[in-house]
Structure formats: structure tokens, C-alpha cells
């Protein structure tokens, strides 16, 4: 963290405090503000944008990334990173498809148990063996994709989901809202309560803020770090299972690069990669922002995929630059 000291400044004036508070608010809610602006601009510019079906579409498309991003937020809050989520997402989908022959319970339990176990293995190596999160989860990205290929005949088999109950989990609606959206909301609410209202959640912030201080305070640092990777594995597996239900098949090639989307969304949402600061509300705003930008680019229609990539990359750069500048003006 960059802390700026002004030795001779004396007590901060009201305007300074105000400015710092504004900067802090902008950093935390910057994504939400940009999101609102984009929604307004989009509604004015494109008649097909502000329609119920388009919004429902945006939400459904976002729901999988929301769930993955929730897990990623926990990990990043501890100062870690999870690059394996894209591969775990694919594995979750394939396992859900295989498990669906045992009904809804199989379609959910099978991926959750395996993906949770993968998260636990990574968490163990990071928390207890002291290995760098980046490397462990990079190996996870590679190894789990290998598992996906191994369970699908080298990626050529696409297990289908025929159980109507499982398909309904992905495609069914309540009050016009798809189930994955509702489940994503539940995950976000549960995660927020966990982070803000429980001792474990506070430990997550403490570990990310300063690992050595947390150790000195007697917090179970290793257990906290272990747990966030299990949570991330569970979230990625759940999102993969829901995505498979939504598309009624476990496609082995999905989720490539998903980790980068999830990390971007979390960072755009104001969570610092060094850990210790951020929240799930920001991640929601970050995910929706990415989806809305994508949707707006699609509304223009004529933009090629390469222009889309340039626009989203440039946008990401602008957002992180603004955030970095804002976070530097605060006194922390």
C-alpha cells in the first residue's frame, strides 16, 4: 500500500477529509456508478437494450461468472489468486452431466464433492505446504483440464443431460428469472453475510491485510487460507454444474480463460489484489459491468470480435488506472 504522509499539514481540513471519503467511495462503488451510467446511456442509445428480456438475458449470462467471482473474491481478499477456476468450471459441468443419471442430487453432489476436493488439495498445498497460490493454481488449471479431457475421451465426448429436473435447474424460471440467477443471488447474499458478520469472514480480511499480524493475533491463518480455496473450488464447480444444466450438456471445452474474467470482475469491483480490502457487492457490479459492456457491444451489432476485444481490454485498463489513482489519494 502506498501511504502518503504530509508531515507539516497538521490536522486534516474538512475539505481534505471530504475528498478522501469521496475517493474511497468512488473506489468501492466506482464499478456500480459506471454500471448505472452505462445502463442509462444504453437505454437511450439502443431501443432493444432496456427490455425485460434483454435484462433477463444479461442476468442469466452473468449468473455463472457471479458464482465463480464470489469464490474468487474470497481468495483474493486473503491476498491469493485462483487460476484453476476455468478448468474446475468445465470439470463441474462434465461431472454434473455424468451425475445427472442419478437425478438432481447426483448432478449437484458429484461435481461439488470433486471440485471441493480439488479446492482442498490446492488449499492444502498453499496453506500448509507454503507454496505460491499462483503456481499451485496454475498447475490446477493444467491438471484439472487434463482430468476433464480424461473423463471425456480426450475432449471428444460431450455427456448430455436428459433428466428433466436437472435441465429445469438450468433452464427453468421463477417469476421470469432463471434458476441460476436465483442461486447466484443466494451465493452472493450468503457470502456477504459470511464476510461481514462472522468471525471467519473477518479473519479473511485480517489475513489479507497482514498475514504476519494475523498470526501474531492468534488467528488460524492456515485454516482461513485453506478454506477460501475450498470455497472457490465449490463455487466454480457449482457454476459449472449450473451452466451444464442450462445448456443440457457438459461441454469439456468451456471455461477457458474464465479465471481471467473472474479476476477482472473482482478487481473492477474494487477488491485489491494484495488482499484485505473489497467486498462481494463490488464483485457483483464488476461482473454486471463486464456483461453489460459485452451486451452493449453486441447491440452495436457491426463490431467484429477483435474490436470487442480491443474495447474490453481498453476499458479494463481505464478502470484499473482510475482505481489505482483513487486508492493512492486516500490515507489508509
Amino acid at each position, binding site marked *: 500500500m502506498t501511504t502518503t504522509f504530509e508531515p507539516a499539514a497538521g490536522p486534516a481540513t474538512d475539505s481534505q477529509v471530504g475528498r478522501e471519503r469521496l475517493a474511497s467511495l468512488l473506489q468501492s462503488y466506482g464499478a456500480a456508478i459506471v454500471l448505472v451510467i452505462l445502463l442509462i446511456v444504453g437505454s437511450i442509445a439502443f431501443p432493444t437494450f432496456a427490455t425485460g428480456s434483454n435484462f433477463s438475458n444479461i442476468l442469466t449470462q452473468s449468473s455463472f461468472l457471479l458464482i465463480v467471482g464470489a469464490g474468487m473474491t474470497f481468495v483474493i481478499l486473503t491476498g491469493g489468486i485462483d487460476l484453476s477456476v476455468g478448468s474446475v468450471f468445465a470439470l463441474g459441468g462434465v461431472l454434473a452431466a455424468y451425475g445427472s443419471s442419478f437425478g438432481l442430487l447426483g448432478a449437484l453432489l458429484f461435481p461439488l464433492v470433486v471440485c471441493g476436493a480439488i479446492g482442498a488439495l490446492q488449499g492444502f*498445498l498453499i496453506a500448509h505446504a507454503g*507454496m505460491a497460490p499462483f503456481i499451485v493454481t496454475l498447475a490446477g488449471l*493444467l491438471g484439472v483440464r487434463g482430468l476433464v479431457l*480424461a473423463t471425456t475421451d*480426450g475432449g471428444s465426448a460431450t455427456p448430455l443431460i436428459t433428466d428433466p429436473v436437472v435441465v429445469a435447474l438450468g433452464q427453468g424460471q421463477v417469476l421470469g428469472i432463471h434458476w441460476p440467477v436465483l442461486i447466484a443471488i443466494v451465493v452472493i447474499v450468503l457470502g456477504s453475510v459470511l464476510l461481514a458478520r462472522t468471525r471467519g469472514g473477518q479473519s479473511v480480511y485480517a489475513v489479507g491485510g497482514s498475514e504476519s499480524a494475523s498470526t501474531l493475533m492468534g488467528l488460524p491463518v492456515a485454516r482461513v487460507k485453506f478454506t477460501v480455496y475450498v470455497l472457490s473450488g465449490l463455487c466454480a464447480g457449482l457454476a459449472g454444474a449450473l451452466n451444464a444444466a442450462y445448456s443440457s450438456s457438459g461441454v469439456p471445452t468451456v471455461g477457458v480463460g474464465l479465471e481471467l474474467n473472474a479476476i477482472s470482475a473482482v*478487481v473492477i469491483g474494487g477488491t485489491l489484489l494484495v488482499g484485505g480490502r473489497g467486498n462481494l457487492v463490488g464483485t457483483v457490479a464488476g461482473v454486471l459491468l463486464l456483461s453489460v459492456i459485452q451486451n452493449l457491444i453486441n447491440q452495436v451489432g457491426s463490431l467484429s470480435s*477483435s474490436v470487442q*476485444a480491443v474495447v474490453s481490454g481498453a476499458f479494463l485498463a481505464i478502470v*484499473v488506472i482510475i482505481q489505482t489513482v483513487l486508492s493512492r489519494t486516500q490515507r489508509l
Partner: protein
Amino acid sequence: MTQATVSVSVPSRGSVLAVFQKYGVYFAIVLLLAYNLVATPNFFAIDNFRTQFVQVVPVLIVALGMALVIGTEGIDLSVGAVMALAAAVIPLYVGYGLVPTLLIAILVGAVIGALNGSMVAFIGVQPIVATLAVMVAGRGLALLIANEQLKSVTNPQILALGRDSVLGVPYSVLIAAVLVGAVAILVNRTTFGKQLIAIGGSRRAAELAGLPVKRILLLVYVLAAALAAVAGVIGTARLGASVPSTLGNLIELSAITAVVVGGTPLSGGQVKVLGTLAGALLLQFISATLIKHNVPDAYSQVAQAIIILVAVYIQRGKARVK
């Protein structure tokens, strides 16, 4: 040994283990080669080694730059996109001959590197997000420049760069060898090298010591991108075509793996150039061994993941000291 460290003392846990930790990646290569000598027919044929070395060149060159960036406690995810950009500009300038084309490609890389470096050094954006944004936009830009098309490259000089040899050594391998030497000298024998390692060791201390931290960081990212551009030219020469849609895809992951397996910790403050070479070769030999024994791609990926974890686990004693 071509390695520079910032006062890292390995806690004594028996000299054998310490030696194994220090030279783990070299032991792994020897073991793998010994296995292949026994179990893989024709692995030791000169032709096979030539193929292996030619194949490792792009990853190796990218990894050299990555090692510098990681030495400063940074990371560069945009290297694959830089390769694609280099590939995309080749058809535009190929008419001017090999050297101008090469220079233009390196210049394009350097500009992208300056963009990364400015965001990291001057604005203070975290390297992983800054270079992620450039990675996404850079690949898109490469496709735009190329009109989303694949173009074959017919210039004989450029093709020769990818295919011809001098005294049995392919040009691309020769270039990579020169670059390994140059980066080793840069890291171990120049002030710049010592400064970049100092920044990785402790940026704050480097600032207090009056080092031009921002300028060094900028230069490191420029170098990494320029090296990636060279890799892009060589990759294009080997394919005989400019393929910006796939060239260098996911190479950042291979390069980071090679650097880390080679003993350079992600926490910065050390750069092991020979280790990076060994790391890249080890990854290449592993995949070649698995391919020659007809191991399906799926299991090969799992095996690679396990080997990476083991290699890093063995070396973790050193990294933790920092």
C-alpha cells in the same frame, strides 16, 4: 552459475538436500534424459534433439523476458498477445526485407511493453491486471491489423530464419542461445541487472537507496515485450505464416512455469537465467517424452501439473526465506 541472488541463505537441512534443492531442475533433466536413453528409442538421435531445441525456442525467449519481470516481483500476461502483434505486422513490412521487418516487430513489442511498464511503474497498477488488459486488447488489435486473416509469409529470408541451419545448428536456436547469454550478462554483470533484482527484493528499499525504480521497471517491461516480439517473428518464420489468432496463445503460462521451475521465485529479488533455460528444456523434454510414449494429452497435462508442483515444492525452502 549464472544466477544472482539477494543474500538468500538456505537453512541447513543436510547438504545433500540443499544441493538437490539448488540444482533440482538440472537433476530432473538428467533423470528424464537417462530414462529416455533406456526407454525411448531414437530419443538421443541428433535429429530429435534438434527438433526439441527448435520447438523450445519461442517459450525460452519469452521466458527470458518473463524472468526479468518476475525478478522485479511483477508478471507479464501480455507476452502471447505481443507475439500475435509481431506476427500481424510482419506481412505489412515483409517487402522491405528481413532486418526492417524484424526491427518493426521489435518496435511494436517495445511500444506495448512501454504501455505495460508505464501502467506498472508510473501509475502503480498491479502488473497482473495491467498486463491482462493489454493481453485482451493486444490480441484483438493483432486480429484487427491482420483483418482476422491468416497470411502466408513467402519471403525466403524470413523462412530461412525458421528453417535453415548453420553448421547443423538452426538459426532460431542460435538466436535463442545468444539471447540467453545476453540476458545472463545483463542480470549478472551490469548495474541494471543488480538494480532490477534490488527492486524485486524490496521496492521500498530500492527507492530509499535512490535507484531510478520507475525507469528500471519501465525498461524491464519493454525488454520482456521486445523479447516476446522476437519470439513472435521466429514463431511466424517457423510456421511460414502469420497466424495472429493462435500464435503465442497461453504461452504466458508456459513461460511463467519455465521461470518458476527454473528456480526464480515469484516473490522477486532473484533471476536465474540458466535455471530458466533448464526449466524451459525440462518442460519440453517432459512433453516430448509423454508424446513419444503415446500418453494421451489428458494424462500428459496431469503429469505436467504434478511435475511443476513437485519441482516448486522442492525449491520452496529458498523462496520462503525471503
